[in-house]
């Protein structure tokens, strides 16, 4: 296990290093820089002033020097200064992380609570009316983008109730009810799409397991269906579901852009897009690295859970 963890850590470090190069280069390849954005709001570009600001921000230095400086700053725990806001990047990013993480967790919770039972029911009642209903619903869920669903939810709320959740972030310590309502609808919008995927994976995986000999044996021994399905079959059918959950969670951290925009939640994903549009290099680079770390940790957690769920899995 120790060797396994060390290997994974080494791979993670290499992955992060590769990511850092990719994001650094991609940002520099994109046309324009933050100075163009600064002048964009003024409506013209003064070449002399542009050169001066580029020099102040260190953007006139060779790309390798800029990269080395950034890596050095990361190693020192300094995330640099936001070009756009003129304050430390960490100060801008930090309050947004818990919002996105909470939304992603709630969305996964919604997805699991809907998707897994629906998948089980669909598998157990294969080719019966309930299975067809579930499959149609899951197809519809997969077909509806979460941002569209989010907008529909908002419009339905305002049309039906004349009410929508708060448009500024409400801390749970400030007003728990308002906080939960604020997160409930975006979590539903995002989670319902993921639930459709999880339902389909659960169904197909469970169907496969249900055809195994040991399931037939369990039935032959006179065990009730509920026990066979939930205790014996589902545990073994859960590995692919877990993989999807891990991937979906990691994807959500960076993929909640539109949902956060529609529900006006000041999370990481929405902020990342704004930072990219502004070519706010320090913020984008550090946020992308943060997302990369989350993806690596989520995958690692899933791999560790494999061993817990399936004792046959060995690490080495």
């Amino acid at each position, binding site marked *: 296990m120790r060797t396994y963890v060390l290997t994974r850590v080494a791979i993670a470090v290499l992955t992060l290093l590769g990511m850092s190069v990719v994001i650094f280069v991609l940002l520099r390849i994109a*046309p*324009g820089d933050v100075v*163009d*954005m*600064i*002048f*964009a*709001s*003024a*409506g*013209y*570009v*003064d070449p002399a*002033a542009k050169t001066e*600001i580029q020099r102040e921000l260190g953007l006139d230095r060779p790309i390798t020097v800029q990269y080395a400086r950034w890596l050095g700053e990361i190693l020192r725990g300094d995330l640099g200064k936001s070009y*756009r*806001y*003129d*304050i430390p990047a960490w100060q*801008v990013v930090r*309050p*947004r992380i818990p919002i996105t993480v909470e939304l992603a967790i709630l969305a996964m919770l919604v997805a699991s609570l809907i998707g897994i039972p629906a998948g089980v029911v669909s598998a157990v009642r294969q080719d019966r009316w309930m299975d067809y209903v579930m499959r149609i619903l899951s197809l519809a869920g997969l077909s509806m983008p979460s941002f569209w669903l989010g*907008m529909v939810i*908002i*419009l339905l*709320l*305002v*049309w039906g109730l*004349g*009410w*929508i959740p*708060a*448009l*500024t*972030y409400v801390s749970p310590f400030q007003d728990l009810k308002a906080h939960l309502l604020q997160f409930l609808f975006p979590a539903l919008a995002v989670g319902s799409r993921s639930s459709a995927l999880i339902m389909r994976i659960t169904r197909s995986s469970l169907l496969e397991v249900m055809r195994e000999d040991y399931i037939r044996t369990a039935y032959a021994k006179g065990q009730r269906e509920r026990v066979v399905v939930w205790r014996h079959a589902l545990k073994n059918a859960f590995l692919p579901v877990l993989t999807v959950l891990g991937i979906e969670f990691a994807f959500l951290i960076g993929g909640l852009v539109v949902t956060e*925009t*529609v*529900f*006006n939640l*000041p999370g990481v994903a*929405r*902020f990342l897009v*704004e930072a990219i*549009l*502004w*070519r706010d290099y320090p913020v984008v680079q550090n946020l992308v690295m943060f997302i990369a770390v989350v993806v690596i940790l989520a995958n690692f957690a899933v791999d560790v859970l494999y061993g817990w769920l399936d004792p046959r899995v060995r690490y080495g």
Partner: protein
Amino acid sequence: MSMQRGGSRSGGFSAFGGRLAILLTLIIAFGGTGWAASTPKYGGVLTATESDTPPSLSIHEEATIATVWPMMPCYNNLVLFDPFKKQENVGTVIGELAERWEWRDGGKALLFHLRRGVKWHDGQPFSSTDVKFTFDVVREAPGAPAKLRVSPRKLWYENVASIETPDAETVIFHLKRPQPSLILMLAAGYSPVYPAHVPPAELRTKCLGTGPFKLKEYRQGEYIDLVKNPDYFIKGRPYLDGIRYVIIRERGTRYAGIQAGRQDVAYPLEIAKTIAESVKKAVPGMVLVETSTNLNDNLLLNFRRPIFEDARIRRAINLAIDRKGYVQAGRQGAAVLGGVMLPKPYGVWGLSEKELGKLPGMGDPAKNKEEARQLLAQAGYGPGKPLKLSVSTRASSFYVDLASFIIDQLKQVGIEATLEQVETGIWHAKLTRRDYEMAVNNTGLGPDDPDANLYENFKCGSPRNYSDYCNPEVDRLIDEQSQTPDFAKRLRLVHDLDTRLQLEGARIILGWAKEYYLMWPYVKNLIPHQSVYNYGRMQEVWLDR
């Protein structure tokens, strides 16, 4: 009085003067607009809407409503457009930090008598030094005590020779030549007075003004909280305890927010007639104000390209675009036709309907297109040899739709145009490099004033004269109108210029966007003006709930 006009002889702000001020303000409010029908109430926090995080909080370094709208309440100008008057003009300019003002030296000097006892939000006293500091920095005067990162309105003050401060309460703007418009540019929301004791760079992330509201908290990407300034120099103002500008990027959410009552007032530059009308239909009690924005949609022809040296080609393009079609297809009815200056009934300087009718693209579309085809044929282009051009625009739905409309119009006269989409962030860099052939653009203007518009957009060599149109005779006429004190005479000059610029295709104006501003009926004294940039002070706004 609370906001005094030039020429007043009153001295300090006495208790009697204060009472009189409130009385007169109420008279103006009731009589002038009929808007406020009950006694103003104190208290409450106005929830206003902001469409995006401002690029910075420094008004003098930005040219976007996203900064002016939430920051105007923090500052004061020397003078301001009367918040109770819908149409801004020289007669609606009232004093703010200046109690009164007078023209001297045959219109070559503008003297301001400043208020006494005004304090910055940090308690420091305000004086003439701050005024000189601000406008020397903005105009990048030699030896200016500081430098802005960018100074978009530098051109507005090009005619200022020097700024003199004989004492702490007096400022004199010495001009190179008479310029009646200076007072209007100083009255714009883009002209706040900055504190001389604070480096301008600090004002990008905070606001420290003399205004009716102070900055309480700024959460980037979330909201800007302003709180009442208890030491405001106008006693009894503001009425509100605070204002929260909620930043909502998604337009559908912004409208849902106002319909659901989360927001009290809409963002002032939506230009979304259909959505606003549907909200009004859903909530009949909502106030919907139809107004203008002082923002025009235009087509730029790059005069550096040899093809546009041919006046026939420019006129053919100008004729090909059906302006009424633009209003319907480009703006879904939310626009009015006009020339270079904001048209009537919103604007002061716009061409009359009769004059407008004579401009290319305004009359019968079929006839115009036929004339365009003939001109192209004379220039050597036709079905066998079509003129091929490119149309650049920002890569966002509105601009792309508008550019597609233009391309379709051009196709009808035989011009084959292709669309080039450019990321918004590098749009102005591209225009500044003149790296385009034709471009669909829009231009927002601060005050509805010829100087603010003509020098910036049409004078030879101006950085924002994106088409690089240059005509020394037009420059001379721009200077002439600028120093003409007689309004009627100046109006004639401006109309002649407007017509000439349109006929020459200097910047082909498609039309002027209209705003459909929504607010709840309990919001009082928030009166949209013809220019979106000048009415955000919020000093007189109160909530009747």
